[in-house]
């Protein structure tokens, strides 16, 4: 049979020849025409040099610098370029042993993380001093180069819980956000964590070509791929540095917390948790790991932020809220007198009270902190729809508390905020039996005890909400960004309203004023300032009760709302009340009047940690 397709052999020959010609032309282009490749012939490494942006600084609300940046250095090495090194001199300059040198220079090259031809970290976190010595001789050590990093420095030993710290990214961070690269720093807690995206800035990168002695011989692709780094935004925090430090001083040698909020904005003026630690201990550097371990093992738990992480039954400081709920639900009137026969008595149930004149109205009930009064009005709320429909009444009460920010996170920017606990009708249905419980079972909720738990931050927020007569902003630590028009997140500019009419606040606030003027907290009086407050004593089954106080001032135009709690401090008027009033005085007047210096001394010197 004739081979009719014989002609096709020419097509195939043509294909082979043309293809070969294309390969040759490409070789001509690479080897003869494109001189850029040859000019850089001596360059045998493209290296990516990270340009780390300086992290945003943190100021207090009066623009005093709280957190600054310190330079440290990471020494990098490219294995294949290391040659003819005077190891003795090298080790001496860096203060490391020969064994360390050999170990660091020979990581596990079998692992994908390391390559002999790509740079890896030889020694991390070299101080500026060591760097200064080493840098002069750097040229003698081909293959080594240095990357500048910023770590944190703290001008004052204060606010460590709030400011937080930064650390190296871990696997989880890397997976979650593609921005990060191994070795990057990231905010781990506090403001550093909450405002990471604002503070971190944007990393830049240079691609450079190095020769086999590690010298830079040019930039890769004429620098077209290089990007500039962008510094992080400087953050003006809501904290008042003086007030913060003063609070820490007052609370020294005690366990407890202070939260002060500016009611009109929700800005946190001070957040103290004692015991604390020096923030400089946890800055990135050699020896940080040990410091962390020591702190973590300390039985006083200095790393624990009590202001948002501790939950207590609020005790009597809850009474103003109880009064507001009862007034709003119309189950009581402002001028309703309720007799107190030494406590609240119902059948065999008895909740004690202390001796005081009969409360003729809500204000007086708050002033004298009458347990009988609040047990009664609590039952009135719960039994609103009838004694047998306690769960309906309790749901109403619960819903009001949610609107005060209780039983849920306030949405603050302090990481790891706890929710506290507001018991619901379902909880009691589970605990007893559906429909098997009635208002007397749960009456202690009316005086802030029982299953009710709240955090100090929530306490301060209640105070701010009453000061605002019915609304609050989620407490936050950020005020603005320095020299930058970036607004703080919208959620901190949004009002949260309670379900209480403004008119109901007047008698409650009057009652809180009387607490200070003529009630349980006369010690909190400040000459010339109308302070409204409420003492509380949180029951503690494990030891002495906790001393609690909430307050705001001045009465007519509140500038500060505060909550103080002192563990094992006993009555609210013993420690929490005085400390609150000193904080208020300090913030509003800038100093403590001579007449109250004795109180300041007494608080500073009190030691409950013995």
């Amino acid at each position, binding site marked *: 049979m004739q081979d009719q397709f014989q002609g096709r052999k020419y097509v*195939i020959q043509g294909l082979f020849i043309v293809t*070969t010609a294309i*390969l040759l032309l490409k070789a001509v282009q690479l080897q003869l025409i494109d001189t850029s*490749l*040859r000019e850089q012939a001596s360059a045998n490494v493209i290296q990516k040099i990270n340009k780390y942006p300086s992290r945003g600084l943190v100021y207090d609300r009066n623009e005093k610098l709280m957190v600054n940046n310190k330079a440290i250095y990471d020494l990098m090495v490219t294995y294949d370029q290391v040659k003819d090194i005077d190891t003795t001199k090298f080790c001496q300059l860096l203060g490391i042993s020969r064994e360390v040198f050999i170990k660091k220079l020979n990581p596990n090259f079998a692992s994908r993380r390391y390559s002999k031809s790509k740079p890896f970290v030889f020694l991390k976190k070299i101080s500026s001093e060591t760097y200064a010595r080493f840098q002069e001789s750097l040229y003698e050590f081909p293959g080594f180069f240095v990357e500048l990093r910023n770590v944190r420095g703290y001008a004052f030993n204060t606010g460590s819980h709030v400011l937080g710290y930064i650390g190296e990214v871990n696997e989880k961070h890397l997976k979650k956000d593609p921005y990060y690269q191994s070795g990057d720093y990231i905010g781990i807690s506090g403001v550093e964590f909450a405002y990471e995206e604002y503070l971190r800035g944007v990393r830049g990168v240079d691609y450079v070509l190095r020769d086999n002695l590690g010298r830079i011989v040019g930039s890769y*692709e004429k620098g077209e*791929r290089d990007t500039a780094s962008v510094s992080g935004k400087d953050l003006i925090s809501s904290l008042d540095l003086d007030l913060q430090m003063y609070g820490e001083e007052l609370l020294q040698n005690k366990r407890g917390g202070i939260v002060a909020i500016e009611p009109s904005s929700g800005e946190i003026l001070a957040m103290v948790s004692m015991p604390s630690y020096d923030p400089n201990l946890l800055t990135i550097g050699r020896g940080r790991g040990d410091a962390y371990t020591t702190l973590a093992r300390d039985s006083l738990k200095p790393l624990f932020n009590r202001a948002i992480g501790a939950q207590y039954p609020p005790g009597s400081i809850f009474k103003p809220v109880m009064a507001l709920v009862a007034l709003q639900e119309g189950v009581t009137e402002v001028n309703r007198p309720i007799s107190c026969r030494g406590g609240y008595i119902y059948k065999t149930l008895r909740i004690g009270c202390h001796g005081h004149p009969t409360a003729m109205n809500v204000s007086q009930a708050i002033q004298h902190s009458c347990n009988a009064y609040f047990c009664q009005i609590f039952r009135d709320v719960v039994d609103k729809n009838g004694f047998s429909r306690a769960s309906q009444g309790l749901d109403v009460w619960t819903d009001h508390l949610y609107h005060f920010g209780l039983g849920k996170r306030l949405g603050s920017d302090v990481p790891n905020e706890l929710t506290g606990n507001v018991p619901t009708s379902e909880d009691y249905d589970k605990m007893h039996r559906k429909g098997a419980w009635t208002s007397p079972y749960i009456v202690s909720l009316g005086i802030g005890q029982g299953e009710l738990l709240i955090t100090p931050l929530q306490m301060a927020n209640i105070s701010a909400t009453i000061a605002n007569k019915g609304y609050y902003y989620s407490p936050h630590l950020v005020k603005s960004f320095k020299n930058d028009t970036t607004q703080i997140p919208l959620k901190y500019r949004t009002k949260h309203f309670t379900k209480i009419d403004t008119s109901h606040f007047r008698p409650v606030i009057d009652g809180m004023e009387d607490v200070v003027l003529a009630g349980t907290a006369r010690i909190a009086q400040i000459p010339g300032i109308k302070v409204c407050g409420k003492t509380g004593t949180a029951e503690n089954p494990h030891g002495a009760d906790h001393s609690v106080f909430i307050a705001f001032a001045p009465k007519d135009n509140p500038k500060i709302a505060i909550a103080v709690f002192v563990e094992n401090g006993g009555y609210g008027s013993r420690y929490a009340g005085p400390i609150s009033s000193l904080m208020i005085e300090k913030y509003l007047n800038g100093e403590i009047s001579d007449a109250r210096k004795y109180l300041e001394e007494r608080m500073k010197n009190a030691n409950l940690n013995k």
Partner: protein
Amino acid sequence: MTTSRRGESNTADVDWMTISIYLGLVLTGWLMIYAVGYRGEENSSLFDMGTRHGSQLVWIGVSITVGFVIMLIDGKMFRTFGYPIYIIACLFLLYVLVAGRVIAGSQSWFDLGFFRFQPSEVAKFATCLALATFLGPYNANLQTFRNRAIAIGIILLPMGLILLQGDAGSALVFSSLLIVLYREGMPPPLYILMFTMIILTVMALMFDSTFPIILGLTLVASGILVNALRTNRPKIIFFSFAVAALAVYNIYPEYELYVLGTTGLVFLILLIQKLRSKRRQLAILLTVGLVFGSGYTTVVNYAFYKVLKPHQQDRILVWLRPSKVDPLGALYNVTWSKRAIGSGGLTGKGFLDGNITKLNYVPEQVTDFIFCTVGEEQGFVGAFAIIMLFLLLLLRVLFIAERQRSKFTRIYAYGVASILFFHLLVNVGMTMGIMPVIGIPLPFISYGGSSLMAFTVLVAVLLRLDSDRLSVFR
């Protein structure tokens, strides 16, 4: 003329030219492997099995011996056992698929203890034999659908099995056997269609969205319609419109929808006008082509950028859109490979003096990227020599193919040429950045006993069959 001349009498008919080229390439390859491993101060023996050049030297010896043994086998063996060999090769593939050792991400090695081989290498040889066996008989042809399907099936079976192992590079090699089918009469429109698809695929991958492609296709289709008109004025008007549309698209990309809409409208008007006149066929063909092209590119584009994982995308992006790839990541090999070749200049840095080659900047330097060493140390002169040597080999094999009276040998020879051609194009192309990085070796030159042995067998069998050319009439 059916007397079989065996043994010593064959030497006269052996194609010494092919053998010379073969030896030249193998020797060059060994020198390059030696150069990569050479560290100056070391003084190891050339035959040290611990070194790569040492072990390669042993393999060269073994391969040549095997080649020699093949020359002694009766050529009829290959004609008779074409199918059995093919079936055994496919069974091997199936076996490694189930039980193969995982190396470099794909399960493709068969371990005999003293020696590991890749069944895909055997499959290349076996598939050439099978094609020759199927199409070799006097009355076999590619004029029926059934025969075409079987021929393509013979290629697809091993290809699919290798693809399942995850070795896309070796699988793609088999597509080169379509050249053999072309030579034996496969209809050209099939190749035109395939070529078009390849072009469309590449285009679809070149852009983030298929918008510019659809715009371009619409303009081209409209242009063809306009061109069919007799008068010149509409052509000029259309040309101006096309230029304007492209300009607007480039300057104001946010108006892309309007640009495409207008262009589409122009096409529709032209289309309606055509449909009314007599040349309907062209209009319908263009419409179908346009719709198919747009749809196909969109699907490919979507699948690539939205479905594939970034590291899978990178392999292609390195080739088509290097600016989108991390230069220290996926682009690293190719960048260094190009830099090594480019730094060689005209005459190279000299044997053993390639510093990029030495510093291991190019991973897989001795296997897939061996051409870098040629480029760096021997410069353009060396690269030219190697490429020309390969071209010479390819043309020689084609020449051998065409001088056969036996269709069997011709088909087999075309198979050998096609496979060598594909390896050359892709391997050398990828080291210079004009082909995607799919790891296939450069025949005879790359380090690796399995590959060298396979190519040696491929060529040796061809020489054995060729030496019978005078005695076999079929």
